[in-house]
């Protein structure tokens, strides 16, 4: 039975699409057959992060309109044969699809794929309703900011009301140094409010921006960055492996950061 997972957050810009792209790729590399669906109709991005923009011929909307078969719209990844992307239409908006249509598409994909990851748009309107319509579980992405956590909380409530009970949390863009200095919400602070089981902590990393612009998911790098490692670990946890959370404090405890800490404690 294939797993249908929606990646959602409520707030925009917290890393839903980055997470979807990296988890999709990481799972494909582990030999799973994965379909990633861009449910962000009108503001599609997932194709860019996967570097597949120039291969799109048909979109999900063409499938629904009967202009092509579903298989024709699926874009096979250029690096990994196990990964396909179902792109969203860029020239329409969220109202052009209904939850029933989403269910139909996802239902058809379950025949051939073990994992179906749905990249949810920001917000809780029609696009959100479409994205979660077919999902059986969810990954909630949040950053350690009060606004992102508040929106994530609302989204958990909506997911529960929609009958999706298997929700797990990814805390993205955490900066251990700031947490240590008490300038940022810690993982515990976030968890205390959301009370959702944690599946991953991803550190803030400049290489995420590079990978986004290049269309190369982090998990493909030869030497994994810390963020890439974190995404790979999340994929392993989704597979049911028990993987320790990364110890994010170590690399930051260099001589300079220690020095800075000593200085800052003396200053204030």
């Amino acid at each position: 039975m294939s797993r249908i997972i929606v990646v959602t957050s409520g707030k925009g810009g917290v890393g839903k699409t980055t997470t979807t792209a990296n988890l999709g790729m990481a799972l494909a590399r582990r030999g799973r057959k994965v379909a990633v669906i861009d449910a962000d109709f009108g503001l599609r991005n997932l194709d860019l992060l996967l570097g597949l923009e120039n291969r799109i011929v048909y979109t999900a909307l063409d499938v629904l309109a009967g202009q092509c078969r579903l298989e024709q719209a699926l874009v096979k990844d250029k690096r990994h044969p196990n990964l396909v992307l179902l792109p969203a239409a860029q020239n329409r908006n969220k109202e052009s699809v209904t939850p029933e249509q989403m269910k139909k598409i996802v239902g058809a994909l379950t025949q051939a794929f073990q994992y179906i990851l749905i990249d949810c748009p920001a917000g809780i309107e029609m696009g959100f309703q479409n994205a979660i319509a077919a999902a059986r579980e969810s990954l909630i992405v949040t950053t350690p900011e009060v606004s992102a956590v508040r929106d994530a909380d609302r989204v958990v409530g909506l997911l529960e009301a929609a009958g999706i009970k298997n929700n797990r949390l990814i805390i993205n863009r955490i900066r251990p140094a700031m947490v240590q200095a008490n300038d940022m919400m810690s993982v515990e602070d976030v968890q205390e409010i959301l009370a959702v089981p944690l599946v991953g902590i991803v550190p803030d990393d400049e290489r995420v921006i590079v990978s986004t612009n290049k269309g190369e998911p982090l998990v493909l790098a030869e030497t994994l960055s810390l963020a890439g490692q974190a995404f790979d670990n999340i994929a392993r946890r989704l597979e049911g492996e028990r993987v320790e959370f990364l110890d994010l404090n170590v690399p930051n405890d260099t001589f300079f950061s220690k020095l800075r800490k000593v200085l800052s404690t003396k200053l204030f």
Partner: protein
Amino acid sequence: MTDSSSVPVVPSATSEATRDQQVRFKSEGGKLLILLPPEGEGDIVNSAAILTWAEIWQQLKHRLDASDRFWQPETVVHLIARDRLLDARQLQQLAEALLEAQLHLKRVYTSRRQTAVAAATAGYSVEQQSPLAHLNQPSGEGGQALEEPLYLETTLRSGAEVQHNGTVVVLGDVNPGSAIVAAGDILIWGRLRGTAHAGSRGNARCVILALQMEPTQIRIANFVARAPETPPEPYTPEVAYVSEHGTIRITRAADFRRAQFEENPK
């Protein structure tokens, strides 16, 4: 323990109007009554206050999840749809959700012909009332007795709002961005971080209890207070009440009885 600034406010007239905009559950004679908020047709002025089916559905699911162990399995449900227009699909959705909680929809009360037809087709007994009938039901009239306490076993998350014409007991956290409005007391066996309004119909003797009191805002009757900027550490169970001086005070639960006693010497 902590004195917080509080200012009396004028009771808002809107709360009376929106009180009815909530799905209500009521047990009566071994049956469970589910009351849907009225649609108020033709009332364009209030259209923003009218809930859509999706919102009603969310409230309903939330309430079913939060209270599911308080109903005996196989309890009979009567749906009081008032002037809500329900189609066959919505009725079926409703019946399925109820069935998940082992509740059986048997009878539908409605004042709309289409709803009556849809319900009859789906095999429920239907009672069609005149459109004015719901006005006779106790709603929004002053001076009525409080309803039974509402017991919720759930986390109230951002965006959730519970309104109840009686006391509310929550076994779980009340997160920031959520709100409880109760005509009676509010008891929270967990953290209170959202907004709580006790004695919403003007009873200043109502109290708010929480194991960990970090509210966004507290209201009792016509009084409003913010939580202290520097919360006490470590947290202990606390009670918020309106003191003699007409301000909201928060005191440790263990000291509550004594504090009241000192303020109102008999």
